[in-house]
């Protein structure tokens, strides 16, 4: 079956512009995550969606970052007024609904990422 897909694969933008990054999770997966991978650093958690629950936004670095998930499926990560430090690879992952208390029990399946370059 199809894995997690992300678009665009590459995005070059000018400082100050807004960008939208899209993630299509695996069909049936109710949990969706966004991470950021900066050069020389590990993956940084940004936001988590689970079904119809309020998202966990604790990882968003500033109020310029926002994300939504429509219909419990596709998600869009929006960065407003982009800065050069926003340049990174943005990764999306999805997982099936946890049967217990611990989300981390279920394997997260990652998309190939969107490489964002802010000039």
């Amino acid at each position, binding site marked *: 079956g199809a894995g997690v897909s992300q678009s665009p694969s590459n995005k070059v933008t000018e400082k100050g512009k807004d960008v939208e990054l899209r993630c299509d999770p695996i069909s049936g997966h109710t949990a969706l995550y966004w991470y950021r991978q900066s050069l020389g650093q590990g*993956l940084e*958690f940004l936001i*988590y969606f689970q079904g119809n629950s309020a998202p966990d936004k604790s990882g968003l670095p500033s109020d310029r970052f926002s994300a939504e998930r429509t219909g419990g499926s596709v998600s869009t990560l929006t960065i407003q007024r982009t800065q050069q430090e926003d340049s990174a690879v943005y990764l999306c992952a999805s997982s099936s609904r946890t049967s217990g208390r611990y*989300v981390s029990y279920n394997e997260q399946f990652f*998309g190939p990422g969107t490489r964002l370059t802010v000039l």
Partner: protein
Amino acid sequence: AQSVTQLDSQVPVFEEAPVELRCNYSSSVSVYLFWYVQYPNQGLQLLLKYLSGSTLVKGINGFEAEFNKSQTSFHLRKPSVHISDTAEYFCAVSVAGANNLFFGTGTRLTVIP
């Protein structure tokens, strides 16, 4: 707070030689541990995970890792590497009730012919 340390940013190794990629974590509560691999131009793929039970965990492609609670480590090993193992390897930790994984900075394994 949780954190993951991968001390080696790059590890070159000759083909068919053994390799160990080191991972240490910091947490005040019980953890779940993962190793992910990222091949060039691909997404992250789960290699193996430790949730509970046996401390020696076997994963795909001949890799294994051992959870050592006293040393707070989860080192990844393979007895004989192949060229195709060249990739970036990430150690990650999660704790009960957490919504996300905490990743290390990654180790780039380069297998030399």
